[in-house]
């Protein structure tokens, strides 16, 4: 495809404050009764006035610092005026030409390239979220809509990139990296499906010959990483084809339509509204002092890259393992909780990245809702280390632990599948196997190493896997040497 795809992203991040941006209503609105988390301010009643949430500013500054942005010492709020039922005041309080932060960057590393790249951040600014609309249809048309203002006034941080992104893959990596960071900072839970993180994209194709930027289209309504990937790929192809056929890309806003797998026209540039931005007179300018910035800078929590380095150093984990464990903060948290009381770190990492993630993935459960707790997992691993059960048996026990929630010790006891480490217990079986397999014994004696492994297998069969393979091997050799 080449380097001529030009993508810029506009991401809205819902901040995890307890209260809304301009009032003290609770932000915990998900799955609540509609219109139960409102007040005169976020309902836009006449006479109400906004008062800024300090924590929202703290979180915004924290995020802007993690994105290497310059924080504007004095920034102001603007009104963005338009009519829509989910906007109670018929204007959104946002920031326009004096935003909180500007000129940052985020480093990304795609799988394809060995090197990392900086995607520049144009700006990050604060604004309030709108309410939610549900459209009711009759005869294929929207007959009426229902409005819920619980979400109205939730604090948002809008992050706008420069058009530095060059492929849909890069866009996904950028978003995953950003999501990881905001999770680590504790400012957002980064849930695309629930809408706590939303993404719009601007795409154009640069003319390969003269380097001119093409007309860009805006893409909306992409609600998962998958949708974003597909929508971007579709739009890039659509634009390329159009250009190849001598057509013109029009400046318009398009919607990703999941059911048809296409981007669909939404509105043209001409229909774009005049928002009549002007400074919000009900809020005085926000002054962010150096000392305020410093106090936040000194308390930046550990970020994914830092944690990865630390995992490699302190836990001696290989790069691949460390990288995967830090990708999603709760996963790394799980590892560390276990690692407090268990020091076979590689084994721990293997089981978490292997069995645990596999079962969680199958049942679509998040790591922080895992039926096997770190403590329970350690118990299982210790049983393996002590030789009470074999690694193979442990896998079965693990499955049972996952399904029943019972402890490893209990399950092992119930199944009677503790490992035989007592020599006497298997002497008889070894006798039997040696007697019943004369030919194979002869093969071993005449130098065929493979033959002994067959015999080990037989012993394991008779002991139902409970014997320790190493011990069986050495006992067999002993026995056969005696012959």
């Amino acid at each position, binding site marked *: 495809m080449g380097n001529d795809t030009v993508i810029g992203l506009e991401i809205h991040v819902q901040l995890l404050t307890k209260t809304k941006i301009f009032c003290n209503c609770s932000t915990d609105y998900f799955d609540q*009764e509609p219109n139960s988390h409102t007040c005169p301010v976020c309902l836009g009643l006449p006479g109400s006035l906004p008062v*800024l949430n300090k924590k929202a500013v703290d979180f915004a500054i924290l995020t802007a610092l993690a994105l290497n942005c310059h924080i504007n010492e004095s920034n102001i709020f603007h009104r963005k005026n338009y009519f829509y039922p989910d906007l109670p005041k018929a204007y959104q309080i946002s920031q326009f030409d004096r935003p909180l932060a500007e000129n940052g960057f985020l480093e990304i590393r795609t799988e394809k390239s060995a090197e990392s790249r900086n995607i520049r951040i144009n700006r990050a600014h604060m604004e309030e979220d709108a309410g939610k609309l549900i459209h009711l249809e009759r005869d294929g048309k929207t007959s*009426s809509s229902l409005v819920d203002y619980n979400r109205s006034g939730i604090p948002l941080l809008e992050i706008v990139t420069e058009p530095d992104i060059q492929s849909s893959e890069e866009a996904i990596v950028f978003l995953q990296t950003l999501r990881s960071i905001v999770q680590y900072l504790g400012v957002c839970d980064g849930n695309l499906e629930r809408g706590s993180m939303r993404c719009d994209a601007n795409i154009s194709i640069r003319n390969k010959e003269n380097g001119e930027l093409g007309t860009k289209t805006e893409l909306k309504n992409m609600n998962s990483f998958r949708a974003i990937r597909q929508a971007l790929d579709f739009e890039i192809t659509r634009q390329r084809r159009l250009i190849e056929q001598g057509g013109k890309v029009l400046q318009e806003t398009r919607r990703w339509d999941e059911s048809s797998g296409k981007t669909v026209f939404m509105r043209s540039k001409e229909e774009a509204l005049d928002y009549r931005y002007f400074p919000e007179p009900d809020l*005085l300018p926000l002054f962010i002092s150096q000392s305020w910035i410093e106090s936040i800078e000194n308390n930046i929590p550990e970020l994914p890259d830092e944690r990865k380095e630390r995992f490699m150093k302190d836990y001696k984990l290989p790069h691949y393992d460390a990288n995967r464990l830090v990708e999603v903060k709760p996963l790394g948290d799980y590892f560390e909780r276990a690692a407090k009381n268990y020091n076979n770190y590689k084994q721990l990492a293997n089981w978490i990245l292997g069995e645990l993630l596999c079962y969680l993935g199958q049942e679509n459960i998040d790591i922080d809702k895992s039926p096997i707790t770190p403590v329970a997992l350690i118990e299982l691993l210790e049983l393996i280390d002590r030789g009470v059960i074999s690694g193979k048996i442990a896998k079965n026990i693990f499955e049972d632990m996952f399904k029943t929630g019972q402890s490893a010790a209990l399950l092992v006891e119930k199944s009677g599948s503790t490992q035989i480490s007592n020599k006497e217990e298997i002497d008889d079986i070894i006798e039997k196997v040696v007697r019943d397999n004369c030919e194979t014994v002869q093969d071993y004696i005449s130098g065929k190493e493979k033959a002994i492994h067959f015999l080990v297998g037989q012993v394991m069969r008779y002991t139902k896997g409970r014997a320790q393979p190493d011990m069986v091997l050495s006992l067999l050799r002993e026995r056969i040497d005696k012959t």
Partner: protein
Amino acid sequence: MSKQIVTEKDVGYIAKLAKIGLNKREKELYSGQINDILLFFARIKELNTEQIEPTFFEGTPSQHFHEDVVMPSLPQNIALGMTGCREDGYFEVPGIL
């Protein structure tokens, strides 16, 4: 003959932005009146304000925030109680074409 700063068509556009329904007679009437007032406004052009910083805000600058502590919201029935257009806890509005 006084200068015409806005036409009826302009007034129609503005009214649409402001979501105020006007009939033809009203557009005529308002465009005349608005023109008069805009002519009165026009005198501000005489003043040279190139080097002047605008005053957007009144009031002594101070840091004015609310603490991140949840306070009770309006009960649902009160929030919905100021209109008759509601259904199942939601506000109901006519369809958006």
